[in-house]
């Protein structure tokens, strides 16, 4: 679909940058094939124009107008920079990526059992042709232009494999650290692939953080869950205020596997989460909760697609957004129930709390049901603080401000409660909930 001058220029800039990228690096042939498939797919999709259905609630105009220099890695990062970003309990189970490059010397995997393997993409595809086929297929069929850009540029893709029936007491943290830039804006393309073998269980925390401003982190993560595998997943977005963050998580669920996810965003200049979930075999289960607490001119947009491609699968989504000042959030969520996916159970709920006249929260819940024996619900609310709750607290002597803060916090806290890791919960209470205190101070 043709775009305006801005999109055409941006597209040309990406292609030009890609030529430069290919000249400067020499990926091994199989990776080169994937990068090439990525850029072809991007050419097919084009730079998204203003009315693209995947970008209904956000403008990519500003991204199109900014010339990003592509960057892979930055050596100027010390252990001290990393230490403050590692959650309590993950000190010996933390994988660090700096500007998309896996940095073993900054990581510590001594607390992980041997059933956890971190393979380079070369080794992973050499060991398992299934991984390469999966990547070929997903990159060739990519529907998100920015994920296609990632496919074109990624130079590493650590593959994290959890052996069959393996369990780990400690959670694994993945830290995506962006170093940003003092001058020209930079783009990075972190990419990861998680493969949970049958019966494997892993608790995973992914955190995005920035050391400086002025970057565009454009990330893709794939999750393949084999039969009976269970991944408890928390993604925390705490990028620098002026950063752009686009991340796509593609999740493929096989028989009786479970993906229990929470996504917490503190927002930035422009943040977009894309969750693309495929419940491909019966008994698979998805839980996806999302929370954004925004102020100033921060933006967080969620684009969610959940495909029930097999009978007797369950998906449950709850999104909560708190917007203040001139901030914006959106949830564009579609659940597709395919023709033979009988006995599907699917719920989707979006609650927005709008604290100022200039803030905006958009919701577009969407159900596409092609089977006849299913139980699907969706709901959506937008509102201010509940007047009856406010009155109740005031009758107990709490001043207006304190009562209002308590209620906005409670709106977020009920979702934070679903995050399994106490250290992440506490950290988010200190970042997200603190933002709400300042709002009313």
């Amino acid at each position, binding site marked *: 679909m043709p775009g305006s001058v801005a999109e055409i220029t941006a597209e040309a800039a990406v292609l030009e940058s890609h030529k430069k990228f290919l000249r400067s690096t020499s990926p091994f042939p199989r990776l080169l094939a994937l990068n090439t498939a990525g850029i072809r797919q991007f050419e097919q999709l084009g730079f998204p124009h203003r009315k693209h259905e995947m970008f209904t609630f956000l403008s990519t105009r500003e991204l199109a107008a900014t010339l990003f220099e592509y960057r892979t890695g930055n050596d100027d990062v010390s252990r001290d920079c990393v230490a403050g970003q590692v959650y309590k309990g993950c000190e010996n189970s933390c994988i660090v990526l700096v500007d998309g490059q896996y940095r073993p010397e900054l990581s510590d995997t001594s607390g992980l059992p041997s059933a956890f393997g971190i393979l380079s993409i070369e080794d992973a595809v050499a060991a398992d042709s299934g991984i390469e086929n999966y990547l070929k297929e997903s990159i060739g069929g990519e529907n998100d232009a920015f994920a296609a850009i990632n496919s074109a540029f990624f130079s590493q893709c650590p593959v994290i494999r959890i052996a069959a029936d393996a369990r780990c007491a400690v959670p694994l943290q993945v830290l995506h650290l962006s170093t940003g830039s003092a001058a020209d804006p930079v783009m990075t393309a972190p990419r990861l692939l998680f493969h949970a073998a049958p019966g494997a269980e892993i608790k995973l925390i992914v955190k995005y953080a920035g050391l400086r401003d002025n970057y565009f982190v454009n990330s893709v993560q794939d999750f393949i869950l084999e039969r009976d595998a269970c991944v408890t997943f928390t993604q925390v977005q705490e990028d620098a205020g002026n950063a752009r963050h686009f991340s796509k998580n593609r999740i493929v669920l096989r028989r009786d596997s479970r993906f229990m996810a929470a996504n917490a965003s503190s927002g930035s200049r422009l943040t977009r989460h894309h969750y693309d979930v495929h419940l491909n075999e019966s008994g698979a289960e998805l839980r996806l909760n999302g929370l954004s607490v925004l102020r100033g001119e921060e933006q967080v947009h969620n684009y969610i697609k959940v495909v029930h491609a097999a009978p007797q699968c369950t998906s449950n989504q709850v999104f909560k957004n708190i917007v203040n000042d001139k901030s914006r959030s959106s949830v564009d969520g579609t659940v597709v129930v395919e023709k033979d996916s009988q006995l599907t159970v699917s719920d989707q709920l979006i609650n927005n709390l709008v604290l100022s006249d200039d803030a905006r929260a958009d919701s577009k819940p969407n159900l596409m049901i092609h089977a006849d024996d299913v139980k699907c619900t969706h709901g959506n609310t937008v509102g201010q603080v509940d007047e009856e709750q406010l009155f109740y607290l*005031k*009758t*107990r*002597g709490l001043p207006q401000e304190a009562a209002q803060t*308590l*209620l906005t916090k*409670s709106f977020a*806290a*009920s979702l934070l409660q679903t995050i399994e890791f106490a250290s992440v919960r506490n950290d988010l209470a200190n970042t997200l909930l603190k933002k709400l205190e300042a709002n009313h101070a």
Partner: protein
Amino acid sequence: MLEIKDLHAGFEGTEIVKGVSLSIKAGEIHAIMGPNGSGKSTLAKVLAGHPSYTATQGSITYNGKNLYDLSTEQRALEGIFLGFQYPVEIPGVNNAEFLRMAYNAKRVHLGLEEVDPLDFDEILDGKMKLVEMDPKYKDRFLNDGFSGGEKKKNEILQMAVLEPQLAVLDETDSGLDIDALRIVANGVNKLFDKDKALLVITHYQRLLEYIQPHFVHVLSHGKIVETGGKELAHDLEKRGYDQYVTAN
């Protein structure tokens, strides 16, 4: 302590209370009884300062102060407590933390130092025994998923923590089984003394078996149509409210 004179009040432009006068002194327990829609709950909401309920005529003074000059939270800090007919559920707000915030707001108002969570925990344990509440309710979200009985016990727990001078209990007995009713009423009785006053609003006489009022007022069509001692409540139980309803 409380002096209501010719109060007219309503909800969104509809007059519901149509000329109520009532005087409550320290050490007194008053009961207001009446059929549904007679204005009982409106009166309670006006006393607490609910923003949707407005007084259009008449005056209310509390300890010599014009009540209308006080915001909802100031009324609470000055010692007025409303026990809700339908306590509000607030998921995400920890019950014990909320109680401590309310307790400390009151302490600050009285010029006292705030208490820390550990000290408050001890205070709270004592208060919970008073209303026979399981300590597990400390860590629950405020009223969230509580049974009807636990919600009402939680109201009285809040009353025990805040030690109000004037407590207005709006249909505290509704939705309670006989055991819960006894526990709630015992709690209220233990909290009452000669310096305090109680206004108990109820549809049924049942609660007044446990909380013995000095005065019973019958409210009908927004007016107090009869006042008597506690025997009036028994009388009403036999006669019903029909006479008042048809009389208008």
